[in-house]
């Protein structure tokens, strides 16, 4: 468990760097560090399917960010410019929210089962009978494409919507020449 906490600390640090640095390329790299740490955490808790997805998606995300940043602008001067001016309201919000969370979270956690203890009977059925019901050796594939096909359809719809959105905003086909 120590590795998990070390990774969490590193993720927090690089998330702070990503949000506070003025250099956008450095921010993209820091964001990639967060993603790869998540991938390592998935490996540590023995979820290779998610680890593979996380690694490839994170690599591509950093490439996307780098490609766009290299084409547009390298630094964001607005970051940190307002620091120190409006400090009271964020501080009050932060402290108030933190106190509420610190009071409520232990209460909520006391109702939850211990970490790693399965409580869902449905999941147990999936794990025990996935091969028998679907014929797929990979239980994860059996769940996401057979038992939980609707979820995957929704996921595919989300990706489709994202692609349509990006293509609608960024397209060059059908635009008048010279107008960007």
């Amino acid at each position, binding site marked *: 468990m120590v590795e998990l906490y070390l990774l969490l600390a590193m993720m927090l640090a690089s998330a702070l760097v990503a949000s506070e640095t003025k250099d956008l390329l450095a921010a993209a790299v820091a964001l990639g560090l967060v993603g790869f740490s998540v991938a390592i955490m998935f490996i540590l808790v023995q979820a*290779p*399917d998610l*680890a*593979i*997805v996380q690694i*490839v*998606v994170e*690599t*591509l995300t950093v*490439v*996307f960010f780098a*490609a*766009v940043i290299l*084409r*547009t*602008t390298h630094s964001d001067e607005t970051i940190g410019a307002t620091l120190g001016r409006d400090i009271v309201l964020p501080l009050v919000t932060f402290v108030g929210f933190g106190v509420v969370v610190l009071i409520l979270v232990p209460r909520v956690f006391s109702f939850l089962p211990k970490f790693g203890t399965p409580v869902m009977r449905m999941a147990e059925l999936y794990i025990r009978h996935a*091969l028998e*019901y*679907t*014929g*797929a*050796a*990979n239980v*994860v*594939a*059996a769940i*996401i*494409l*057979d038992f939980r*096909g*609707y979820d*995957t*359809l929704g996921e*595919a719809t989300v*990706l*489709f919507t*994202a*692609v349509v959105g*990006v*293509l609608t905003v*960024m*397209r*060059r*086909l059908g635009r008048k020449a010279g107008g*960007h």
Partner: protein
Amino acid sequence: MRGLSLIVQTIARLMAGLLFLYGLYIVLHGHLTPGGGFAGGVLIAAAFILMSLAFGSVEQSERSSYVFSSVFESFGGLVFVGLALAGYLAGDFFFSNVATYFTGRPLELVSGGIIPLANIAIGIKVGAGLFAIFLALGASQFVMKE
């Protein structure tokens, strides 16, 4: 888009085929080993993105691959929905695994009914979709407004 240096181009030429093959492997073995349509599709998109980053592209080929990738994106999505609807054709429910009863034995490449087919459909969809996003983001020479 202009290409990168000779070193990058040589390495990209060596790596892109391997990346593409590995993506295909991940997609096709999604029902046997970790991975699946999404991860494999991203790898396939990465192979295309690597080539287009390294070699750049002229206006015309960029435009045609843009059209191709958006067509393939929709095609993959339609195949996935079609596989789900095939459950009705077999007199069963939406997303029922219709082919389980007449294909393959467990732990072989051809097994799992519609699961490998759905993996392939999702792989096409994700790969083409991400490449289309990359082309849209990288190709248009937009300037950020001040």
